[in-house]
């Protein structure tokens, strides 16, 4: 490798996403006027340069490289309008020069990345630029941060702004300082990966020269660390052989966004505040102007939120920012001055608003656009078409909206969003049904989705949405096809009736008519052999829901009658398993109880279900001593609630179950099952309460201790209202009321003071208890 030749081409060192570098680079290119511009970026993405430079493409955009061998893995190379690489490509297009990428191919970096990165989705091309970030994995502070602190800056970003961004550099002045900086970073041991890339890029450059382009007409735009290595001649051609072969992959261009760019910190990787840099770029690197614009923005934000922020406040903030920059010997204010000035003036010394909402506007939420002629696959096209047609959010900030599922249009939107959910494409998340505030977050799909009349969603586009859309293309060309494929896979993996019924429900919710029929058949097949009561019960409920709410969303041709028949059959099969399942071990009783309640619910709600059969089974459970006592308790409660059992019968039954002859543990387990049903109704019945009271008072001390955990669990589930009723009934039963009043009168007369003390002590004890808990 002729390294001397390498130093004859025009080398320009850059830092990614730096407006100043971009401005200086522009002037330098005008002077050098190269015929070929070689840019750091995956060489197999050279074909995308045209798309990147298209008039219709609006940064931030990113080159997306993804594996095509089935392993989900991808990497992004983002560009902002103020990225020097992007400016170089645009210059080449405007000046009819040839532009090429020269870094290692996507497939290689994807493979290398898999080996040495701990987090998936790390961006290799933009992330590990130099020794600076390669040492961040160690607890020790990176060189760049140490360097900045030694010079009195609070962070490397502040140093960069003050020394590189703000001063009005000439190309002659800028190149040496950037290279000197790269030398500082390269002083430590350099990561092998970067040395391999040095070798690869050097070869690419020399190939271009060898093809007959005079070296004076070649310009190389690459990271400062690489250029420094080229100039120092520190390139070992043999290292290229160490690069792995690479995995099969493809590249495309997707939109990117400012919030994502702000997340990538570290040398070369991103920006603290892309919107601020964008403003600076638009103002031709006049950071004073950018500061003023942002301050005006801030004042606007404050005013819309009802705070006072006048133009004179903005002026004062601007003046303070300038004075601060002056004091710190910076040529223009940077983000730190901007922040401090905002806090001291606009926010009156209180930083909460800045952190709360103002700072977001220097990050920005801009989303790029990619020229339509290439770059989008059919899934992306469908996604954007649907999002635009349905007026769904398309910015990179969370937005909430709700859908009323009483018209075709909004049902269509719901189907679209549910398809994205099933396909695993990150975009929207269900917020719950809207009306039940404070309720635990409901399951997004399944039975709950079927019964909803209103859905509330929160959607946010992020580049990962597009990444997923690109990756999922292997599963199908349309969202429906992808969803169908995924559901079919889940169906083949389904082991129980419940799993199959779940797929059936998801098929209906996502409007995948093909899988509806298949899932129905699978349900039928599984139900015949399934002996698991919880699975059967949950399937019965799913099917009953479908009978009630219809399968119209799916536009399936199987017809609702088929579902109804299957529902009847599944319910019947579930009934057959009730007795057997209820005679289970104590630790397995939870799901069984859940299943029994589900069956009860279905039996009462669904006319096609065998209600009489269920009631007979329940009665059997109630009377049986062979099953787990809590199932008997539950059955008793359910029957009472369904008014199949008179109050006196319940009291009799409960009394019998809790009598002295029965083991207290069994009694307590019975009680637990019994109180799991609507406890309010139960504790309102004085006769039931009497039976409970008799049971509790008759348990011996020793036994009581053993049964205490179960009792606690059973009674602990009661809410405040239920407890009050229970206490009222107990008080009435034992005729404590009158005694209590008598006691109260005496006490009030005598010991008012003492009582006060006691209650204070008690209050404190309770406070302490709260603290402990």
């Amino acid at each position, binding site marked *: 490798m002729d390294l001397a030749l390498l130093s004859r081409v025009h080398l320009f060192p850059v830092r990614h996403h730096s407006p100043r570098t971009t401005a200086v680079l522009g002037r330098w290119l005008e002077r050098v006027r190269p015929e070929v511009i070689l840019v750091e970026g995956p060489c197999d993405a050279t074909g995308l340069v045209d798309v990147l430079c298209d008039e219709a493409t609006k940064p931030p955009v990113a080159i997306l490289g993804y594996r095509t061998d089935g392993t989900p893995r991808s990497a992004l190379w983002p560009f902002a309008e103020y990225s020097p690489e992007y400016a170089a490509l645009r210059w080449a297009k405007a000046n009819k020069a040839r532009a090429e990428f020269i870094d290692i191919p996507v497939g290689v970096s994807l493979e290398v990345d898999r080996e040495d990165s701990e987090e998936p989705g790390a961006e290799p091309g933009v992330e590990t630029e130099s020794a600076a970030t390669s040492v961040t994995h160690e607890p020790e502070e990176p060189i760049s941060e140490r360097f900045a602190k030694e010079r009195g800056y609070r962070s490397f970003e502040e140093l960069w702004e003050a020394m590189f961004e703000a001063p009005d550099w000439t190309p002659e002045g800028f190149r040496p300082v950037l290279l000197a900086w790269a030398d500082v970073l390269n002083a430590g041991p350099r990561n092998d990966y970067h040395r391999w890339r040095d070798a690869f890029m050097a070869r690419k450059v020399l190939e271009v020269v060898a093809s007959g382009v005079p070296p004076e007409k070649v310009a190389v735009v690459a990271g400062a660390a690489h250029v420094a290595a080229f100039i120092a001649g520190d390139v070992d051609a043999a290292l290229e052989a160490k690069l792995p072969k690479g995995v099969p992959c493809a590249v495309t261009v997707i939109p990117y966004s400012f919030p994502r760019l702000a997340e990538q910190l570290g040398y070369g990787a991103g920006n603290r505040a892309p919107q601020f840099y964008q403003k600076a770029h638009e103002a031709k690197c006049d950071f004073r102007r950018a500061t003023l614009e942002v301050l005006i923005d801030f004042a606007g934000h404050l005013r819309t939120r009802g705070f*006072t922020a006048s133009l004179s406040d903005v002026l004062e903030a601007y003046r303070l920012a*300038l*004075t601060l920059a002056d*004091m710190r010997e910076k040529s223009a204010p940077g983000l730190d001055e901007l922040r401090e000035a905002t*806090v001291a003036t606009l926010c009156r*010394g209180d930083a909460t608003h800045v952190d709360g909402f103002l700072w977001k506007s220097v990050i920005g939420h801009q989303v790029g656009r990619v020229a339509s002629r290439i770059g989008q696959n059919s899934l992306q096209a469908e996604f954007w078409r649907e999002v635009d047609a349905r007026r769904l959010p398309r910015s990179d900030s969370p937005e909430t909206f709700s859908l009323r599922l009483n018209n075709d249009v909004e049902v269509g939107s719901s189907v679209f969003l549910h398809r994205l959910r099933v396909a695993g494409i990150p975009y929207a998340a269900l917020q719950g049904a809207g009306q039940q505030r404070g309720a635990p977050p409901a399951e997004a799909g399944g039975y709950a989705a079927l019964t909803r009349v209103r859905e509330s969603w929160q959607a946010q586009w992020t580049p990962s949405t597009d990444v997923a859309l690109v990756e999922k293309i292997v599963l199908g060309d349309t969202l429906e096809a992808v969803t169908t494929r995924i559901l079919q896979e889940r169906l083949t993996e389904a082991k129980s009736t419940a799993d199959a019924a779940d797929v059936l429900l998801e098929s209906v919710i996502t409007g995948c008519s093909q899988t509806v029929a298949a899932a129905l058949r699978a349900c039928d097949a599984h139900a015949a052999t399934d002996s698991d009561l919880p699975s059967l019960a949950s399937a019965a409920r799913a099917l009953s829901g479908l009978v009630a709410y219809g399968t119209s969303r799916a536009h399936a041709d199987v017809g609702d009658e088929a579902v109804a028949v299957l529902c009847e059959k599944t319910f019947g099969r579930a009934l057959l398993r009730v007795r057997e399942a209820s005679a289970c071990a104590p630790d397995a009783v939870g799901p069984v109880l859940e299943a029994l309640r589900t069956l009860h619910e279905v039996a009462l709600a669904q006319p096609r279900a065998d209600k009489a059969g269920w009631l007979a089974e329940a009665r059997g459970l109630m009377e049986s001593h062979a099953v787990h006592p809590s199932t008997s308790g539950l059955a008793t409660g359910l029957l009472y609630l369904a008014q199949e059992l008179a109050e006196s019968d319940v009291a009799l039954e409960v009394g019998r179950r809790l009598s002295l002859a029965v083991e207290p543990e069994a009694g307590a387990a019975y009680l637990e099952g019994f109180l799991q049903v609507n406890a309010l109704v139960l504790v309102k019945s004085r006769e039931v309460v009497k039976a409970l009271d008799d049971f509790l008072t008759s348990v011996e001390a020793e036994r009581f201790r053993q049964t205490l955990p179960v009792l606690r669990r059973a009674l602990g589930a009661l809410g405040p209202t239920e407890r009050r009723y229970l206490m009222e009934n107990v008080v009435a039963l034992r005729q404590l009321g009158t005694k209590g009043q008598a006691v109260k009168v005496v006490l009030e007369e005598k010991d008012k003071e003492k009582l006060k003390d006691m209650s204070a002590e008690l209050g404190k004890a309770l406070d302490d208890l709260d603290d402990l808990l």
Partner: protein
Amino acid sequence: MPDIRLPAEAKYKTELEALAAHDDKPRPPGWALSPRAVEMYILGSPKPVGGVSITPKYVGDKGLIQVCIATLASDRALMLVGEPGTAKSWLSEHLSAAVSGTSALIVQGTAGTSEDHLKYSWNYALLLAQGPSPEALVPSPVLRAMKTGKFARFEEVTRTSPEIQDALISILSEKQVSIPELGDVVSAQRGFNLIATANTRDRGVNEMSAALKRRFNFVTVPVVEDLEQEIQIVTKREAELRNDYQVGVPPPEELSRLLLTLFQELRKGVTKDGKTKVRTPGAVLSTAEAISVLFNSSILAEQFGGGKVTPHELAASLVGAVVKEQEDDVKALREYMETVAKSRTGAWKELYTASKKLLRG
């Protein structure tokens, strides 16, 4: 007899003179030092300047001090806000001393502060004898600052009545005071500015109007959260106090660490290891309070103890500091001793035993 307490400009005269002599940066009109030199005076310098070592007056965020100085340099009034005892007045005194060479032009804001304190009043004997004349006029510290182009200080703005705060607005916006009795108007000379302080704890007393707030740049002086930093501040200031008053014996480092740990834990309501919750007392546990506790115990040790500061003296001063008005605070401190101090070793054990006697009943 020497003064009990020297103002900053007298106490640090040599430092200020050395800084002025070696200050080659441009100075804003009316300033004795350049902004950089003021910063160095406040934060201290690692290298001596002209053979004089510059001690740090404020330990903490450099950015905060720079915002203060930049505010003053851009001719804008500065408002220092924060919890009591966070060195707001201390900072204001040193800033005035460094920039104007005097920290004496001060108005203490109280409920009784009247417009006379802000503008001018009269020597009534002269007034009756001669009628209104410049000789009979008694200018307020603010008026004097305006005439001479120096910094005025206004302490505890939120304690003054709204009328006084309104009067302040016109002074700050017009930078002049008219004296109708003499048919005269006094305009502020270049170099005039105002540093005010306000407590965030008495925000409710007389909340500043939006119009007044607009006249200031605000800087929040934070409560010190870093243990090492607070130990540094407290031991340094306590040593200075002992030196000024020529009393007390130096307390051992272990005890200052113990005291500051206790203060920070009570302030935060949780122990340093984050494992035990403790009750926060109502009294303000500021850094200034810690300094006074430590100083107090060093005097106790010298005058009434064995000439060495022990946990015994510390406990005696501590109880008085934490338990100010509320009975509940006794409980909080007792609880802390029982749950936290008791289980620790070394001086903590002694502190526990010593405090047990004091906290009983």
